[in-house]
């Protein structure tokens, strides 16, 4: 591989300019990192909306991307911290297993889709289908989320400081949804649920992880979850399927 890297600005820091380095080389280099690598901080310049930047990582390194990214940024992430200084395209953090992704702008559709673990923070808004089929990830959106968010969400939490679009939590399993603002409508089998002490503790933990504990009034959040009427086929529910 002929990776054209600039000299490291500091020990353990690697600078990659995607205006001159092919994305494939960057991702290849990230995939080759050993678990005990000293190259623990990667700073990526000029992403220009390219797709799949820092996808498929499996090492405890930090990748900071200076600008907007395209589709599937940090998809399948395991262990890594990925920070996007800009907007993210479709499917940011899709199928994340663990680690941390922080989008400092807006995210497009299907943010955190099918993700099993880790924490995804979006400073701006996320559009439609945020957390679709999430399986254990924690997602915190400081703005609002679009329609069909948490569709078929199975586990994990979705915390929204702004509003939620139509059909929130449609066909929801056991993911826990906390929304501070308005909810345009609830999807099939999604209902508002009582906020008990254990849920307040859970919400507090997620807000703390996102650096928001004490910044927002916890009492403003409402909890939504599954009514569990669609778990098994029942003819009375046929119109809901």
């Amino acid at each position, binding site marked *: 591989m002929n990776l054209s890297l600039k000299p490291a600005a500091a020990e353990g820091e690697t600078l990659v300019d995607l205006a001159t380095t092919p994305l494939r080389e960057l991702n290849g280099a990230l995939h080759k990192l050993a678990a005990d690598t000293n190259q623990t901080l990667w700073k990526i310049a000029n992403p*220009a*909306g*390219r797709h799949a930047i820092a996808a498929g990582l499996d090492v405890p390194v930090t990748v900071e991307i200076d*600008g*907007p990214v*395209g*589709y599937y940024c940090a998809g399948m992430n395991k262990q890594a911290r990925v920070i996007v200084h800009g*907007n993210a*395209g*479709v499917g940011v953090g899709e199928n994340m297993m663990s680690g941390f992704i922080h989008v400092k*702008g*807006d995210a*497009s*559709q299907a943010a955190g889709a099918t993700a099993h673990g880790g924490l995804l923070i979006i400073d701006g808004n996320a*559009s*439609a289908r945020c957390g679709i089929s999430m399986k254990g990830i924690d997602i915190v959106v400081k703005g609002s989320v*679009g*329609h069909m968010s948490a569709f078929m969400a199975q586990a994990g939490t979705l915390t929204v400081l702004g509003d939620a679009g139509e059909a929130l939590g449609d066909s929801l399993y056991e993911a826990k949804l906390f929304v501070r603002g308005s909810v345009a409508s609830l999807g099939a089998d999604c209902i508002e649920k009582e906020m008990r002490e254990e849920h307040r503790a859970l919400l507090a933990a997620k807000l703390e992880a996102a650096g928001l504990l004490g910044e927002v009034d916890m009492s403003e959040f409402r909890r939504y979850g599954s009514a569990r009427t669609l778990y098994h086929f029942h003819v009375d529910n046929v119109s809901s399927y």
Partner: protein
Amino acid sequence: MCGIVGLFLKQPKLEPELGALLSQMLDIMCDRGPDSAGFAVYGGGTPGFVKLTLRGPAGTDFAALGAEIDHPILARDTHGVLSVPVAEEATVRAALARLAPAVKVVGAGARMELYKEVGLPADVAKRFKLEEMSGTHAIGHTRMATESAVTTDGAHPFSTGPDQCLVHNGSLSNHAGVRRLLAREGVAVTTENDSEVAAAYLTYRMRGGDTLGEALEHSLGDLDGFYTFVVGTESGFGVLRDPIACKPAVMAETDDYVAFASEYRALAGLPGIETARVFEPEPAKVYFWDRAA
């Protein structure tokens, strides 16, 4: 997939660069649709004159044809543009049909010029010298054919009324029914392409008195399927996504322009993009800008 782009300038200063900017946006969208490409540019016009964009078979001698009809035709590869007094439009169209039946009028209006061909979008833009064109706004399309064949007729944009054009990413599920409605109303749809039906639907609504914004609002109720539309009128620029928002869209707005693309990559090279307001247009919400307003 298909890729669509649009650029609407709010200030005159970028007008000389319109074609170059759109060309660069179209190039980047090649990998969303390598089958064909097209674009419409709203450039200069002369009051009292109508601009006709012609498309002919490869090798059409537009200079000779222009001499025959007594109106010079500016040739750009397979296309040619001529400007005729409004009062003579019908006569000129009739003469063209008689003298060169293989040459079609693909666009007409006070300011719009429309070019489209099969082939790699980057090559199509080069053939028509898009980068040299200037104007106030332009839309473009790179096509991955799904609902109809890879032909020049199936390429976008579609223009079904004066200075009106539309590019579409998606597929309409009720285009056959809408096509029948339009036929009953006397609105011509000349290809088998579902996107032309959408263009013609907007023409039909605007002919009935709708503004572009109102026509787009009505589309939400009457057009079924997946779509992101970008449309142009003589002074306006509109964007509409279906309520499910199946097809991607991203916009950027600065004091100088409003830009649309299927993906952010196509916006990355625009001047001032670093400080632009970049946002995703919401589903089922009509976005509309007009320079005349």
